[in-house]
């Protein structure tokens, strides 16, 4: 069952606020689940730690790379390694345009790689396109638990 939520993995509160604002500006109403670091994100997805038995099944993961505890690329690796989350759309949303991050990200099975622009106008535009594509146009894969 998709609960149409978006898992936002972001440690920087400013970026969190700006992302929420950009989503709101684009009228994207989906519930936002926030994870402050990689470990928390994995707890949400796999129903572990504080979320034991209650895994979130988001429609989209917006993943920052530079995270405390478990970094973004490692989170992506675990998501792709787990049969339950193997097909989950993951969009890397980060400041870096470092080649190795881009190459590694796609190599681990990221669905998109979007760099957060400094210009907030451009950022709103990017989030608009992202939301349109992944939440409206894109047909999500069936959830493995779906009966």
């Amino acid at each position, binding site marked *: 069952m998709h609960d149409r939520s978006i898992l936002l993995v972001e440690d*920087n509160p*400013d*970026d969190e*606020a*700006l992302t929420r*604002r950009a989503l709101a500006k684009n009228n994207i109403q989906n519930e936002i689940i926030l994870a402050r670091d990689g470990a928390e994100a994995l707890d949400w997805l796999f129903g572990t730690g504080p979320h034991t038995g209650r895994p979130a099944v988001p429609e989209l993961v917006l993943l920052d*790379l*530079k995270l405390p505890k478990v970094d973004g690329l490692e989170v992506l690796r675990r998501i792709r390694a787990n049969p339950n989350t193997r097909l989950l759309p993951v969009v890397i949303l*980060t*400041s*870096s*345009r*470092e*080649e190795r991050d881009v190459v590694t990200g796609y190599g681990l099975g990221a669905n998109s790689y979007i760099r*957060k*622009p*400094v*210009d*907030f*106008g451009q*950022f709103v535009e990017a989030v608009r396109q992202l939301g349109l594509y992944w939440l409206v146009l894109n047909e999500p894969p069936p959830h493995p638990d779906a009966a």
Partner: protein
Amino acid sequence: MRMGLSLERRIQVGFGIAVAIIVAVGTAALRSTEATVSSAHWVAHTLQVRAELEATFADLIEAETGVRGYVITGDTTYLGPYQSARRTLSSRLAGLRGLTSDNPAQQRRLDSLETLVATRLERFQWTIDTRRTGGLAAAGRAMIGGRGKELIQQVHEVVTGMEDDEERLLAQRSATLQARARVARLAAWSGALLAIILAVVAGALITRELAGRRRAERTLGETQRRFQQMLASSTAVIYANAVSGATFSPTWVSENVTRITGYGPDEPLQPTWWLDNLHPDDRARVLAEMPALFAHAQLATEYRFRGKDGAYHWVHDEARLLRDAAGKPTEVVGSWVDITDRRRAEVSLRASEERLRLLVGSVRDYAIYMLDPEGHVRSWNVGARQIKGYTESEILGQHFSRFYTPEDVAAEKPAAALRAAVASGRFEEENWRLRKDGSRFWADVVITAVRDDRGALVGFAKVTRDLTERKRAEQALRASEEQLRQYATQLEAANKELEAFSYSVSHDLRAPLRSLDGFSQALLEDYHDRLDDTGRDFLQRVRAASQRMGTLIDDLLSLSRVTRGGLQVTEVNLSALATALAAELQRSDPQRDVRFAIAPDLVARGDPGLMRIVLQNLLGNAWKFTGKRSPARVEVGSMAHDGGRAFFVQDDGAGFDMAHAAKLFGAFQRLHASDEFPGSGIGLATVQRIIHRHGGQVWAEGTPGRGATFYFTL
């Protein structure tokens, strides 16, 4: 021969025995014959004696008969027998005396016979005389009384005695003769038999000897033929000279002289042939050597000799003097070999040795010298003098251990080096050595054992190089390599730091800018009413500064990125790349009227990604700085430059003052106000860095208001 006697001796002995036997048999036969003849003589003698005796008796009887007839008849004719008996009887008696002269017994009987005969004859004469004078009767009485009958009887007795004696002698002699004849026959037969045996044995021996001799002759003939062939095919001419005093006269020379010298077989036997053809320059020397031949009985010498064709050949002549029992020189025999080829080889060997000697002598960078088997210096070259400092006269005969350092000498290294060279033929080491002035040098030393044809050690060849400079250079190189390694390590650390820095810049430095810009925008949106124009303007400036800072960070990261990572050099089509970039620029601002002229087939070797950044920057600049011109023109092409090709991007834009050309390629250097032409001042720095990484050059020409041209090579 088995018995220790030679065949000749045996034959001699055999013949001696045969001759002895023949002489013995002959003597025996002769003696037997003589005895036979003598016996026959004695038979005849006996018969003659008997005949004479009977004739004497008969003469007497006839004389008596005649006398009686006369007496009776008185007829004188009856006296004839008496007359002839008187004549014959004395001669018969004399003959008998001669015949029996060797027999005293018969002589004695003859004496009495003569007396009797004489007496009877006297009686006859008396009777005759009586008849003549006395008549018949007286004569008859004389006859009757005359003892005539008794006398005849006595004569008959004497004659018979003599005859019997002769018969007895005859018988005796015949017996002796027969015995002798038997012996002679036996001797003759056995002699003949022996002679036949000897003849057969001698014949067999001689036949055998002759067969042996024929065999020996055949063998000898073969040997001689072989010897001849050998001589003929030999390269050595054999000769003989008779010696008389000090003069030689050739007596024999082997046939191959013709093949070897070209002269006919008789020419070498001419007395002056040898001396005539001896090279004039060698003549005196060779003749001066002649006394040595007499002194030592042999002589080996070499000289040039003129062949029949007139060409001189080198000849090796070995002569030997033969003497008779008295010690007088009689003959010189010798051999003679053409050694021209060997001489030539020797001459060329000497020449090449000389060349080698000159070569070795003139080598300056290597000390090349010889040691004797004990290690004493035997030769010295210029290089040796140069490197070690000793002159030839100083060092010859000195032991080579003086080139070693005292500690090496104490460790007996010189001897060990020679031992190693002897054992494995060659010894090589690098070590310190001493010069004459006591200074040390780093030497590369090769010692090679030198052996003669039979493998006996004749010494060592030493080649020494002064590697001090190289050693120093090596040490310096090692030091700088070490330094370089340290630099490289430091550089790597710095690079890692830089990478971590730019990674962190890329992530963390932009986040606050986003907040600045984002929240400024939020203020402008959400608090628009509470801000006056000035407040809104300030927030716009905050946003613009944040965005410029973001661009700056991106350009800086891009500049740092081009210095990292490897170059993937392939062939890059610059024409296609420039065309694509021009199209992109035109799409970004379709209002602009910029005419691009891009030469076709511009091909370079470089990293495609970096080439794209270069053209992006250069075309971007051209696009930017022609912003105030319409229509503008941008040309991309290539030209010959410095033996290769240079590419260029030319525009007719704002241009620049060449006085500032040096500043163009520095990071953050700008020649125009940013409000006039925006930019970070990092683009050309990035271009230069990429071109330099490719090993190329980049430069620019410009005139203010007329445009600029950027050139680069790869």
